[in-house]
């Protein structure tokens, strides 16, 4: 339109035409690169408006002011058009980029391999925590234990069949009276011998019996036992504690019962039963709907319990006329079978990672 050789046309019409041409070009811009080129062409040093602006100096004073204002307004219009177009182009480009960057959110991902605690360990911790929450403490002791602590201190007769090599694993030579503990009760004896009264403890741990391995027996298994020795403790406190544990493990609507039994360690002694959670007792006397879980008995045996035999208190140096106590114990494997439907105890000892992983690391 204008060149160095021709005199600049600074009329309103000419300037409007320049602005119109610039705005039209800017509106056609589709990308950041085109925008950059348009900015240079219509707002840069060599743009038509910049070039005509140089002619201002040659104008007479009164015209100079008018034309200066005219050109300033024109350049502002072009700048506004650029800015408007930039917003549109940037937004469109971001949208295109995000669309292009979309992923399949269902692809498999890994931070680390899937680890898992053994369900027995997890359940043992969970059961211990029920008691820790009540202020009890967790006591531990050796697995290779003295016969005296495993049996004699717990009022087990020297001729009791459990002390034979058919039931109990002994360390060589037999005359040393060292064995693999058959219960976690020696920890109770140690606690009574070592700790200040009163005593409120649980002892979780591994125990050993000379049993054949089958779906419901393993020779190395886990127990949790509890012991309270305090003034005024009775069988009613045992019942309350067992109810609390059962509810914590199986839910508030679990039914429990205790049933007279015999254990040397306790007097009176009782077995702890849970109402069958499969048939809820409906299978009793109903041959059409037998229950394999409770063998149609309606109840399943969970553990043993009782009031600590005063003879045990005496052997541990506690005055039975002043103190009394209760104790209970149950198998963790059995509890896991009841709670989480583990069908075969052999799975618990074979170390198959699929077994450990099946609960995703927590016992629910």
């Amino acid at each position, binding site marked *: 339109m204008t060149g160095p050789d021709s005199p600049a046309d600074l009329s309103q019409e000419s300037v409007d035409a320049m602005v119109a041409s610039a705005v039209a070009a800017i509106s056609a811009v589709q990308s950041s690169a085109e925008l950059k080129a348009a900015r240079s062409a219509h707002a840069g040093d060599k743009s038509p408006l910049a070039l005509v602006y140089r002619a201002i100096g040659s104008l007479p004073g009164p015209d100079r002011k008018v034309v200066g204002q005219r050109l300033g307004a024109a350049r502002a219009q072009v700048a506004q058009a650029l800015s408007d177009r930039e917003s549109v182009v940037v937004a469109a480009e971001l949208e295109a980029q995000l669309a292009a960057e979309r992923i399949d959110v269902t*692809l*498999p*991902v*890994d931070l*680390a*391999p*899937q*680890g*898992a*605690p053994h369900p*027995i*360990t997890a359940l043992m911790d969970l059961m211990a925590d029920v008691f*820790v929450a009540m202020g*009890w403490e967790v006591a531990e002791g050796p697995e*290779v*234990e*003295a*016969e*005296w*602590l495993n049996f004699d*201190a717990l*009022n087990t*007769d020297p001729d009791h069949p459990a002390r*034979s*090599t058919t039931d109990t694993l*002994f*360390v*060589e030579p037999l*005359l*040393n*009276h*060292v064995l693999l503990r058959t219960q976690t009760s020696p920890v109770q004896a140690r606690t009574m*011998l070592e700790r200040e009264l*009163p005593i*409120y403890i649980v002892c979780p741990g591994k125990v050993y019996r*000379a049993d054949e391995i089958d779906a419901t027996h393993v*020779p190395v298994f886990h127990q949790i036992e509890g012991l309270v020795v305090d003034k*005024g403790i*009775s*069988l009613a*406190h045992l019942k*309350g504690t067992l109810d*609390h544990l059962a509810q914590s493990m199986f839910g508030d609507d679990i039914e429990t*019962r205790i*049933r*007279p*039994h*015999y254990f040397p360690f306790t*007097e*009176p002694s009782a*077995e702890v039963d849970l109402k069958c959670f499969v048939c809820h007792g409906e299978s009793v006397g109903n041959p059409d709907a037998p229950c394999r879980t409770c063998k149609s008995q309606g109840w399943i045996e969970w553990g043993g319990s009782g009031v600590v035999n005063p*003879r045990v208190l005496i052997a541990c*140096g506690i005055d039975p006329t002043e103190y009394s106590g209760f104790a209970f114990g149950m198998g963790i494997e059995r509890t896991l079978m009841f709670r989480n439907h583990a069908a075969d105890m052999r799975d618990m*000892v*074979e*170390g*198959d*990672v*699929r077994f*450990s992983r099946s609960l995703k690391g927590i016992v629910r």
Partner: protein
Amino acid sequence: MRAPLTWLAEHVELPEGMSGRELSEVLIRAGLEVETVDEVGSDVSGPIVVGRILAFTEEPQKNGKTIRWVQVDVGAEHNQPHDDYPQGCRSVVCGADNFAVDDLVVVSLPGAKLPGGFEIAARKTYGHISDGMICAEDELGIGSDHSGIIVLPRFADDGSELQPGDDPADYLVLRDDVLDIDVSPDIGYCLSIRGLAREAGQNLGVAFTDVVNLETPQPIAAGHPVILEDPACPLFVALTVTGIDKDRPTPRWMARRLVMAGMRSISLAVDITNYVMLETGQPLHAYDASLLTGPIRVRKAKPGETLVTLDDQTRTLDADDLLITDDTGPIGLAGVMGGESTEIGEHTVDVVIEAANFNSRTISRTLRRHNLPSEASKRFHRGVDPAAAYSAAHLAARLLVELAGGTVSSKETVAGAVPEVPTVSLRADLPSEVLGVHVDAERVVEILRASGCRVVAGSEELAITAPTWRPDLRDPYEFAEEIGRKLGLDKIPSLLPVAPPGRGLTRSQRARRAIARAVVDAGFVEVLTFPFMAGDDLDRLAVPAEDARRRTVRLANPLAETAPLMRTTMLPGLFGAIARNTSRGNDDLALFEMGSVFLAGAGTAAPLVPVDRRPSAEEMQAINAALPDQPRHLGAVLTGQWLRAGWNGPGVRAGWQQAFALAEVAAAAVGADVVRRAASRAPWHPGRCAELLVGGISIGFAGELHPAVIADYGLPNGAAAVEIDLEALTAAAPVSGSIRAVSGHPVAKEDVALIVPDSVSAAEVQAALADGAGELLESISLFDVFTGEQVPSGHRSLAFALRFRALDRTLTDAETAQARETAVAAAANLGAVLRSF
């Protein structure tokens, strides 16, 4: 103990129509473990009747058998019209030939159901329509005899004449409910119908009649002479019955009861002694009087004595074994099993019945020593009522008279006496205190009297003499238990005791839980293996002779002869778990286990100290000194892929890197830093094993396993392992930590590449750099290891990133350069040279 309901009902007035299952509910609540209730004959139904044989014809068959075509009168209700017989009859085919015309037999008619779901219907066989079946014992489920059909006597046991059409179920004892009870060791008296009936009566509140007359006369020596030479036999009653008819069979009712109770019917005399034992709980023994030589002596065995027992085994006797002897030597193992030489047999006509009482502990020891569980030893081991002996002997004698036609000699022998039961004192409110429910004194007295105790009530104390059949009632708490049993434990309230404030888990327990959680989160799966080792595991691991892991604890009676040792290392058990997993197609494995290892101590004995007092400090020390060290270890083994190759990239092999990282994760869980030091230790690869140190203390080892061990245990190549002593780790871990102030000033970063001789480890160089850099160093990390061009052989280039920062100011370039220079200078002492490019 298997107890038929009808037998119990002869001793206790059970409520009308009470079923075995209903009674079992009552007994279970009273503490008797009823395992099952067998509803014997519940699968037999429909018309089963007495029939009289009217006639039969024998018909030989092509298959060589001869069948009988039988006309049998089954009573007016069931007979069909027949031309030859005005009263009618049924015609059936029968394969047996042990009957004659006019015999009474058992006929199951069409519509009857027999055991095994066998339904009787009129069916065509051997050219006839057989309209029922004449039954043998096994077909009715009342025995195993199939040699012929049952031929009934003319008269039932009550003397009434059996008629065609009668229901033979009662006579045959077709149906009964049998309670199978696992009797706990403290209530031996419940190994008898008498004891169970007493419990049923007391718990139901109904009348019980004791079959036993508890009076035992003063010693008499009129019968067969008996000499008691050992206090383990306080009482011995001997009755002589002469002239028994050896041909008389055991009556069906008795045989059926024996079988339902789980015993076999052998011969009338033996069956009678067993029957009386089941009924009274008093084991009896019958000697052939003609085979006894001289007086019966009860004494302990002499060295070298032997006895051939009834099971035809020659037993070498122990000086502690209590024996029944005569002038020829031992004739029985007292309370356990009789001897062969005086056994009654098919020629026996005169018998001497023994009803004796033996000390339960003595019998327990003999029973265990000779591994001879018998019906007798099972009872004596738990304790037998001594007051039942005399009466039981007479019950047996009476049955030998009634059923076997014998004559009881009026001359009897009672040697010894029923031991006195001590009278003990019970505070009347003790049961309430023990049970946690108020039981007033009158109720306590009432219950104990119902249990057979003699009670003299004082103002606060009760003087109690337990009955002879309750040796389990001696201590005050035992009486409290009896009150609880009879009251019903469901009457006891549920009260949660309030513990004093606790301190939560111990430091060691928290540490183990934190470590386990961290190791799991890092990707490891916990397994629980049996903590045993094979005899050659340590050799296969190449553990040297002087290594502590050789201090093994050996089991006297291991579960498997192939694994007689307690583990001293976690690794063999984990190797087994790896093998089991890989055999099942689980190839990518990161397994761990936390548990004790067992390191033998001095091998001294743990004394069996008295239990009537607390052991002394010295005694406890001796007990503990006999036990092995049992530190808890963490073991882990890795094989296969740590991360599998996938859509997003190649996989990562599991190996020594993850083993080292695991050690760091475990230590970090208790706030400790691990330093690694090259080490050589079995069973690891000598060039790829690190000793793990926390604060300079060794806590374990990690690395790739030795190729020979990998091959020997069949592990995948490159398998790596870690074993950490958790006791050492938690002991070395910081007890508490302090938090460092965080600087807000800018960081100055410096990279340093050093040429280092191969003999110097990266950790050493890093430690030297850190030491030389001084307190301005915020962190240092190795980011490159390079060998090849520009690096002399026997050297590596190690590149470290150093970050410097001060708490109080922005560092100047000069300060940073100075710190870098002193760091490099410190590394130079190890032979590290700044790399120039």
